[in-house]
């Protein structure tokens, strides 16, 4: 009889909190968007599913050993944790607070103490430690993305790098927006939070996750969800802005065919980029280094088996764990916060500003080049969101002139945007990391 009671009182339905219930609905919503609406499914399916698993009551899959120990709150365990953490109170909230604020040495000791009491890290928490806290997963995804990227269009027209630069204004404007919301007393973001929120405007999932895991890990769930959702919404967000900022005549501009780019140039480009990073911004070295490494493997032609693995088995494995790990941060207490609304709002503003700046920069460059050689529609591709943003440019070009194929021209700013946001990430890590 007692067993039956145990089973009942330990069941999910007996213990579920409103927050958990709501977060499970959000997880289901993300799965719906991913599966039926094709919102970046490769990430949002694992994130959504991980979010549901993280909110299964009593399972503690997203909790560390210490958090699990505190959850079950046996007095002697709390007592031992309090003593390890060197605090007087053995109140669960105080212990968690001290634990999250503790340095590495105390953190490790508290973790061992919780294990001594028979608690262990949840599965998703372990995935998070290995994939994100170590920083490795976003870097390996960047390597795979590098191995998938063709810099040919960029090399054929290097000036499109300016478009990739301009579109990053969305990032920094959003930082200022987050600061403003805090100054107005509406939100409470630190400068680190603001920087991490800004990076949503980079329209680049792994960069956003990497930066956020370094600067504001507690916001990881909201920022990753915002970043991937808005990337999926690029075909809805960008067109009105692009139409508003360009004239019909500009949209009709046909661009001359890109020159042929030799194999040697493609092999040398990642090396040139790496050296520039090495000389100017060492803080961007992990991200751009792995990106260049993937691209060099692709282009050098002598390690095709490595390039193939980087683009397939390895990136797929990492994507599964990255997604589940991000999902583990969709816990009710962190996500169901007024701040999350602020992040979602600021994120879409960031996309909008980035798009606008890219288009305006393209207009300026077109003017400077005589007014009929650069179609401003390719400017919006500078936000990255590869290859979606370039497709949007192409689509609007075709609307204006059925013979106007901008896809390849837009791929230049599109990959430039990846470089641009990685550089912006490096600057932010340098300044506020």
């Amino acid at each position: 009889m007692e067993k039956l009671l145990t089973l009942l009182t330990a069941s999910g339905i007996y213990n579920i909190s409103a927050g958990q219930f709501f977060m499970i609905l959000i997880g289901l919503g993300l799965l719906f968007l991913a599966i039926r609406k094709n919102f970046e499914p490769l990430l949002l399916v694992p994130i959504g599913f991980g979010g549901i698993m993280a909110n299964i009551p009593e399972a503690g899959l997203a909790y560390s050993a210490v958090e699990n120990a505190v959850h079950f709150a046996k007095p002697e365990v709390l007592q031992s944790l309090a003593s390890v953490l060197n605090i007087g109170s053995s109140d669960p909230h105080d212990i968690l607070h001290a634990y999250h604020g503790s340095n590495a040495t105390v953190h490790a000791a508290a973790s061992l103490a919780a294990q001594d009491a028979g608690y262990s890290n949840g599965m998703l928490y372990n995935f998070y430690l290995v994939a994100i806290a170590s920083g490795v997963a976003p870097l390996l995804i960047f390597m795979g993305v590098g191995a998938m990227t063709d810099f040919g269009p960029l090399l054929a027209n290097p000036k499109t790098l300016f478009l990739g630069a301009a579109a990053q204004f969305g990032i920094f404007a959003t930082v200022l927006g987050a600061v403003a919301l805090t100054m107005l007393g509406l939100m409470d973001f630190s400068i680190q939070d603001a920087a991490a929120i800004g990076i949503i405007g980079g329209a680049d999932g792994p960069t956003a996750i990497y930066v956020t895991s370094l600067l504001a890990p507690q916001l990881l769930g909201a920022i990753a969800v915002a970043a991937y959702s808005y990337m999926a919404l690029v075909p809805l967000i960008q067109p009105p802005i692009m139409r508003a900022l360009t004239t019909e005549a500009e949209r009709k501009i046909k661009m001359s065919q890109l020159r042929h780019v030799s194999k040697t140039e493609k092999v040398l480009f990642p090396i040139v980029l790496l050296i520039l990073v090495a000389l100017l911004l060492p803080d961007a070295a992990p991200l751009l280094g792995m990106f260049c490494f993937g691209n060099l493997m692709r282009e050098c032609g002598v390690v095709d088996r490595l390039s193939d693995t980087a683009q397939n088995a390895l990136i797929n494995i990492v994507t599964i764990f990255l997604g589940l790990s991000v999902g583990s941060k969709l816990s009710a207490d962190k996500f169901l916060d007024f701040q999350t609304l602020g992040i979602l709002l600021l994120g879409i503003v960031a996309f909008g500003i980035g798009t606008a700046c890219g288009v305006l920069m393209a207009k300026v460059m077109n003017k400077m080049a005589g007014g009929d050689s650069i179609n401003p529609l390719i400017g919006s591709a500078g936000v990255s969101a590869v290859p979606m943003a370039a497709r949007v440019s192409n689509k609007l070009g075709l609307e204006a002139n059925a013979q106007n194929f901008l896809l390849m021209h837009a791929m230049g700013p599109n990959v430039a945007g990846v470089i641009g946001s990685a550089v912006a990430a490096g600057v932010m890590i340098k300044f506020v990391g």
Partner: protein
Amino acid sequence: MENLLSEGVSLMVFGMGFVFVFLTLLVFATSLMSKLVVKYQPAPEPKPSARKAAKPSAGTGSAAATNDELVAVISAAVHKYRSR
């Protein structure tokens, strides 16, 4: 000893009972789900082409080429095989 026996018996009773309860609920839940699906979605496959088309975009970076590359590789292999 007595304790071990009682633990074993109660594990059997509650364990087996729970397995049946769980799977019975799953039968109901599954049947309900199937009924709702059949009711609200008579058409078998809603826009499969759209799904396929949107598949390749992967975080940053286009995974789009993958499929085409596979076809290309296989085509080359087939060609090599036929031209022997």
